[in-house]
């Protein structure tokens, strides 16, 4: 328990902030910044190369995923990489310019028993300035979360917007022989099981406020919705009406939930209060209406309906004045996920080859396929900053979780081998 009790001490270097970064980047793929990530060095006598290696591995993985950087191979590093020079006055920027580096990460660590201190710095090589510096103090076991947190700050320093790496991904796994709810880091590490329902759990969603999660479970013999506080472990059955109680999704302010209920015999989308009281029946058609996804402003909901024949994605005005069809192509479109910035909706389309993930503008224009090839890619969910999409894929024959950039590039598997990993949901900033 104590190993999570780490404290980040954030050192904001006041003098560098107003000037802003020399390197300005916004989106992946346009240009990449040549970045050198050095192995951190011991700040006192104790040398723990595995600590330095793990921190390096975490931030390199994160920053590579971002697509904003070209990582300079370590083998080419010169003498400054092995000197604990952490002030911009002492760093030999000339050496780094020689290697073509425009950004440089250096740092040091100190291990005392279980305790770990890390000092991490990001420098602009061109202007020879510190862009951001952080000091992390906690347990050795927290090192990965420290690394993810620093990677978040690196993105913030260079783009103005924090990264999403120190977050969690919830998913459904069957490793115990039952479908239970789990949490993992964005790189698939630190897996923790959250439930012991010994039943079937489906389709989690994080509350945007507070560390709470909503999911479907058959524990009581019916697909019911449950809410669970992640830290306390406290759990309550949230909606257990007759028939389906599935696909709960919090509104962006966390105060209302959209869910599919079939209490009157047909699957319709309802808006519920946190006390489970029905605020509104949003859909009312003979067809199947499932899979709601809120717009970030909370004024519209994308959902799946077969009211015109095949499953397609529709958008309903929350006030109920208007329902419009979003997807016009494809015979089977499902699982919409509205991006946190509101500019695009991701969804999965089934065709001859299986499911692939697409995005489309909420006005129905500019549809783009993000995934191709064999297998089914399903359940897209956005990172809280909208830079990435997590999804499930069985392209290797195993049901596994993957992350890609919002433009479909950089896809990589995050879940380990063994068993099924399905129904991902990306937490807000942790």
């Amino acid at each position: 328990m104590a190993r999570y009790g780490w404290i980040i001490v954030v050192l904001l270097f006041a003098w560098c902030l107003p000037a802003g970064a020399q390197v300005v980047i916004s989106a992946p793929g346009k240009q990449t910044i040549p970045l050198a990530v050095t192995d951190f060095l011991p700040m006192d006598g104790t040398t723990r190369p595995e600590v330095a290696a793990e921190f390096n591995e975490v931030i390199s993985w994160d920053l590579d995923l971002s697509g904003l950087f070209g990582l300079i191979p370590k083998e080419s590093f010169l003498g400054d990489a092995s000197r604990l020079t952490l002030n911009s006055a002492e760093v030999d920027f000339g050496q780094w310019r020689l290697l073509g580096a425009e950004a440089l990460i250096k740092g040091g660590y100190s291990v005392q028993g279980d305790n770990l201190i890390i000092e991490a710095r990001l420098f602009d090589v061109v202007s020879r300035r510190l862009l951001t510096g952080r000091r992390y103090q906690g347990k050795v076991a927290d090192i990965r979360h420290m690394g993810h947190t620093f990677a978040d700050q690196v993105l913030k320093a260079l783009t103005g917007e924090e990264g999403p790496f120190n977050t969690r991904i919830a998913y459904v796994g069957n490793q115990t022989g039952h479908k239970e709810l789990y949490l993992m880091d964005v790189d698939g590490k630190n897996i923790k099981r959250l439930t012991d329902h010994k039943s079937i759990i489906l389709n989690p969603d994080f509350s945007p406020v507070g560390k709470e999660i909503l999911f479907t479970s058959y524990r009581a013999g019916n697909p019911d919705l449950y809410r669970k506080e992640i830290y306390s472990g406290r759990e309550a059955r949230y909606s257990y009406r007759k028939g389906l109680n599935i696909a709960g999704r919090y509104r962006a302010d966390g105060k209302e939930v959209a869910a599919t209920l079939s209490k009157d015999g047909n699957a319709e989308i309802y808006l519920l209060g946190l006390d489970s009281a029905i605020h509104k029946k949003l859909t009312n058609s003979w067809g199947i209406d499932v899979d709601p996804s809120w717009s970030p402003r909370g004024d519209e909901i994308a959902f799946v309906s077969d009211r015109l024949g095949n499953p397609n994605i529709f958008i309903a005005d929350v006030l109920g004045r208007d329902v419009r069809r979003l997807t016009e192509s494809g015979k089977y479109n499902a699982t919409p996920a509205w991006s946190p910035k509101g500019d695009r909706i991701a969804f999965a389309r089934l065709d001859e080859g299986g499911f692939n993930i697409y995005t489309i503008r909420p006005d129905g224009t500019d549809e783009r396929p993000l995934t191709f090839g064999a297998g089914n890619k399903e359940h897209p969910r956005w990172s809280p900053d909208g830079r990435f999409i997590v999804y499930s894929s069985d392209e290797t024959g195993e049901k596994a979780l993957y992350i890609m950039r919002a433009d479909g590039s950089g896809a990589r598997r995050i879940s380990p081998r063994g068993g099924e990993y399905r129904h991902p949901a990306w937490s807000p900033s942790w």
Partner: protein
Amino acid sequence: MKMQNVGKMMFVAVLAVALMAGCAKKPAPGDTMGTTEMGTTQESSQQDTGFQEQAIQETPSMETTTAGTQIMGLERVFFEFDQYTLTPEARTVLANNAQYMKENPMVKVVVEGHCDERGSDEYNLALGERRAAAAKNFMVSLGVPADRMTIISYGEEIPLDPRNTEDAWAKNRRVEFKAVR
């Protein structure tokens, strides 16, 4: 004793976070800067235990653990992809099932709707419910009292055949009749 100290420290840390107190921390040598503090300090024992349990690997056996047992005399019926309409074969089977229910008036059943793994999971939950309702309603029309049959959908969660083939999918698009537990 050490744990207590740790607990105490954590409490202080939690309190500090809760108060959003910008506490002064010792700055790095040679640098002056504003400092803020944040932390994730309350991870529960729930999460700690989950970590150890990751290694457990078993082959799931959902048929016995979640769904009920099949009743002899009540046959499964099968469906076309993305359909819940009853085929002529399904109607024949359901007519036999209805006859069995009338001859065994004490039997109560759960009518389970299932789907193949293609299609969206949530949509399949609704589709499975429609399949179960279609089977139940047909048997009601043949004189079986509605209150002896309850319906539930498992969507694509409990396939009869887990393979990824046309044959397997056809087997998995089904309605089953299970004893009420």
